[in-house]
């Protein structure tokens, strides 16, 4: 279990950071790697797999924030370990830099090297704990202006549309102080759920799944113990049935800092949160749930060289909740030449587009209020006569959205208790929910 080199490449293939730990792999490895990844795509083979071997060198890579984090080795190591490690390195660096991008890397390369030297020695992992690393790292991060940044990463979803959240908190370094010089005491607990639903042509749910994670980021001083209570009727696995109407998770796993001593009894997790962002718990649920959107999509031939697409979406959640950045996409028949869109009268914040190159319809809605319904009609002009079934030529429709303050699984954080060291002040506690579409698909 050891790696030979670690490097970070920009999307253009520029070397941003390069560390050779063992000198076993030739210097040109970054170029070899980048060429391979690039040609993989150009040869229409799809995305390069995260692990491949060129001339006896194994290349591992993960994508994070538009950058490629790469490790090389000649040894037969555990792929899941190296890929996990790369992901972790990216997260630790983000913890320190506040934001992860090319610019912040270039401004802080000395700090990044400092971190890399402490995380890995001669190819062997030493520590990846943001907390432990603090005592070994002496350079202070140079912050870049976070306000100008495009949003990225799961945490940034809170920055859109919700006024509740201080946007900067998410991009704050573990080193950073508030402007007054006093560190702001706060802790974030985010329940992030990614939902996947596939509807068949008659609107019946074929498959559905929720992949959830409870993510924590603590800026509390003195490492107090935290107790996190979940729904008491939470069941894990079908053998652990806790009454009807209960939330039944298929399975879950926990961060190593979590103590489960009373979890079986009252569903509370206790932990001393380390610094930096980390998942407290990951869970998976295939129990049927109410999907936030119902979709009806239809394509009909309306004459020679003409067809019409009708898409109707209905938001099936409470009217106090809004979905943001909704985007509906649908591949149209390859013979589509022109599209005329008809929105319902009075529609605000809607955008429609026909992407000529890949024959795709795109319908964007800035905000969808719970309980509302929206319809789009698109009249297609086809370039040549059609023989087969037009239904087979279009679709499936896919949808992406973000719904803050909503979670499909009904898993809840009942309370968040901080073992207080002083009574002087009460730290800020943010418990936030968000649901995102992972793969939300309706077939025609």
């Amino acid at each position, binding site marked *: 279990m050891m790696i030979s080199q670690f490097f970070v490449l920009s999307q253009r293939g520029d070397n941003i950071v390069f560390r050779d730990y063992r000198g076993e792999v030739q210097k040109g490895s970054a*170029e070899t790697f980048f060429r391979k990844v690039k040609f993989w795509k150009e040869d229409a*083979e*799809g995305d390069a797999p995260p692990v491949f071997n060129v001339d*006896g060198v194994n290349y591992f890579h993960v994508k994070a924030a538009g950058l490629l984090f790469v490790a090389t080795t000649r040894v037969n190591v555990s792929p899941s370990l190296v890929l996990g490690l790369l992901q972790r390195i990216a997260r630790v660096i983000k913890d320190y830099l506040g934001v992860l991008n090319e610019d912040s890397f270039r401004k802080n*390369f000395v700090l990044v090297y400092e971190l890399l030297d402490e995380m890995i020695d001669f190819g062997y992992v030493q520590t990846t704990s943001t907390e432990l690393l603090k005592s070994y790292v002496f350079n202070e991060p140079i912050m870049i202006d976070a306000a100008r940044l495009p949003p990225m990463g799961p945490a940034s979803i809170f920055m859109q549309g919700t006024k509740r959240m201080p946007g900067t908190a998410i991009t704050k370094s573990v080193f950073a102080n508030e402007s007054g010089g006093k560190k702001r005491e706060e802790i974030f607990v985010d329940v992030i759920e990614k939902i996947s639903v596939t509807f068949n042509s008659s609107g019946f749910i074929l498959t559905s799944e929720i992949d959830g994670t409870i993510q924590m980021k603590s800026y509390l001083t003195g490492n107090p113990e935290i107790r996190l209570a979940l729904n008491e009727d939470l069941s894990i696995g079908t053998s652990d049935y806790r009454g009807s109407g209960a939330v039944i998770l298929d399975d879950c796993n926990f961060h*190593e800092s979590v103590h489960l001593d009373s979890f079986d009894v009252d569903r509370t997790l206790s932990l001393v949160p380390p610094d930096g962002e980390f998942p407290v718990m990951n869970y998976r649920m295939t129990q049927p749930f109410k999907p936030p959107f119902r979709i009806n999509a239809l394509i009909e031939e309306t004459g020679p060289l003409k067809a019409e697409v009708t898409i109707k979406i209905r938001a099936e959640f409470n009217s106090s909740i809004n979905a943001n950045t909704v985007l509906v996409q649908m591949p149209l028949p390859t013979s589509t030449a022109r599209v005329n869109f008809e929105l319902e009268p009075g529609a605000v914040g809607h955008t429609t587009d026909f992407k000529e190159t890949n024959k795709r319809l795109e319908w964007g809605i800035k905000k969808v209020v719970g309980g509302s319904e929206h319809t789009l009609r698109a009249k297609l002009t086809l370039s040549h006569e059609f023989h087969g079934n037009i239904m087979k*030529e279009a679709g499936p429709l896919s949808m992406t959205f973000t719904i803050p303050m909503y979670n499909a699984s009904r898993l809840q954080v009942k309370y968040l208790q901080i073992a207080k060291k002083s009574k002087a002040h009460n730290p800020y506690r943010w418990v936030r929910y968000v649901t995102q579409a992972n793969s939300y698909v309706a077939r025609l």
Partner: protein
Amino acid sequence: MAPPQSQRSPSPSQPSGKSEVSDLKLQLRQLAGSRAPGTDDLKRDLFKKVISNMTIGIDVSSLFGEMVMCSATSDIVLKKMCYLYVGNYAKGNPELALLTINFLQRDCKDMDPMIRGLALRSLCTLRVENLVEYLVGPLGSGLKDNNSYVRMVAVIGVLKLYHISASTCIDADFPATLKHLMLNDPDTQVVANCLSALQEIWTLESGSSEEAAREREAVHSKPVIYYLLNRIKEFSEWSQCVVLELVAKYVPSDNSEIFDIMNLLEDRLQHANGAVVLATTKVFLHLTLSMADVHQQVYERIKAPLLTQVSSGSPEQSYAILSHLHLLVMRAPYIFSSDYKHFYCQYNEPSYVKKLKLEMLTAVANESNTYEIVTELCEYAANVDIPIARESIRAVGKIALQQYDVNAIVDRLLQFLEMEKDYVTAEALVLVKDLLRKYPQWSQDCIAVVGNISSKNVQEPKAKAALIWMLGEYSQDMNDAPYVLESLVENWDEEHSAEVRLHLLTAVMKCFFKRPPETQKALGAALAAGLADFHQDVHDRALFYYRLLQYKVSVAESVVNPPKQAVSVFADTQNSEVKDRIFDEFNSLSVVYQKPSYMFTDKEHRGILEFSDELGNLSISVESGDSVVPAQRVEENDKDLLLSTTEKDEVRDPGSNGSAYNAPSYDAAISQPLADLALPSTGLTGQAPASSLAIDDLLGLGFPVGTAATPSPPPLNLNPKAVLDPGTFQQKWRQLPISLSEEYSLSPQGIVSLTAPNALLRHMQSHSIQCIASGRQSPNFKFFFFAQKADEASVYLVECIINTSSGKSQINIKADDQSSSQAFSTLFQSALSKFGLP
């Protein structure tokens, strides 16, 4: 740190070019002696500029002296930058590196443990061999330091020293110190580092030192394993993986021990880190291998955690886990048969995840879920993502070939043919062809649809070949088959694919025997075109058909249109030995690549996971010929012999036919009759003529061929069917003294042919010398052979090391009957010298 290659666009704040470097030099010099307040801040700025230049690839090594002068500071940020600088340039400037030794050694004795650790680490990364004498002292005290950070650094430092100068490391007795620390240090990261360092050192040493080999094995002993297991939760998640990997190799003495270990580790399956979960899974699977019931329960237990890892992690992590699920499902297909929906593709997944999921769906399909899986796959076939659409159709085909009830699938495949998308039609044609070979009863339905496809709309070679095969095979049922074939023959010159032309020849032949008057003209044209073809295989096949027809038409018909049996099982591309080996290497790259590690790593990098030089563990163990033959013959017969050029190529080791026949593909249609011819001749004479040897190689069948065919046979006769099990070999090898040791040269052709080592094994086998084990460490090949006297039980054992760069081979012979070892050596040498010669 290597300077990055790209030098473009240094940001404006960063200096570039020579004048800046000399400017920096001047400023550093001014600051070097200064004791004024604020000096450190100025130095920091300067150092940053230096490092920044270094990162973007500007050579700042000329500042070495000044940097070292400025390093007399207590500021830790400055020190770290200085260490970074020194580590980067020391290797290229050994005499300058000597300058740094002084202050690094001083820092190794600093009050601050952080500085001691950092200095020690920098000292060990200088990688300059003539400085190793300065390392031993600081490392020795570092290992005894009362601060765990320093010890942690020192342990890895020992490993670095080992790589610079192994003898210095061993002479200082550092491995023993590490072993002591591993078993006694209170800090788990120190323990983990000791474990990693020792495993690396002992593995590298074990080639030359028996003691190191023993030590390496001793790590798997009960006290060590228990000691580590009892503290496992104190280790970092990454170190837990190291420990778990070790535990997976441990052999418990009884079942209760197995259950104890599994109980202790069960909560590791709930760990958020996928690497820990996989490492734990490996322990569970390997510990229970001999307990069938429990092993099944383990599959049930690991299912949910692994599925959670697939969906909760990044796509990269899903990929790694899915690869492992695929391996598991091949061993136990039923485990996921009710969880198949987890492997449905999501539209936004990267294609490498989708491809694996399609493989999973193919593997989990059984009677109960096939209908739903195929329905889902058909949705993907219309997908905008064309590579995935193709894979999906292939998956449907694979499922059809492994199922008994295929009615529904056939209907859907035929629908694909009508979809009017080129790539869908192409993939579907190939599938229908394979399907017909297995289920001839569907021919009526399929032919009706296939007959409607115009050959002009099919361009892809594989699809075209499939269509032509069907035209030939079912020409009696397809009205215009002779005419379609005729028009294809007319366009012979425009057909670029040799595969298609080969199929066309065969199809026209088949059609001719079924509908002679209509096909005669096309056959004549095809044979003429084939004989004139520039492609060797096409030419040969045309000639073969021509001569066959000349010889006797009825014989030709029985060759081309023999009564055929449906194919029951298509040959698997991987043999079970390879699969088992991959399973042994669970939680490693072998699983992702679907190859055992010896196929993609050099020996020295195979690491601690596997492969030792001991005989029993050597990589390729070749069974003696006669036990292999029946299996292979069955496989040959099982395939449709008239159609298997491509599949055959995939199954076959591309180089295994040695130098006797180097054409890229060969036609099984030829091989069948020739094999029949060759067999009686060996049986009759017992002394194979040279020509049938060549055929033997050409067929790649590897059946044993009589005795050695040397022109002037030496008095020694060997038993062509000698058998020796590896255990006996190993035992004898230990007991017997070397009776003869010689060096020969190998012919250059022989060296070239060694790119396919199996060819040598077969070659030697034809001389009644059997290989029992072989291995490779570039540029050397190492083989162990044995042979047995024809008339008595006396055996010869040979160790043969071939250096491919010098062309020399070193032979050590051990023999029961030492008086005859010279005779055997002559025989061995004559056999070896013929290797690679035509």
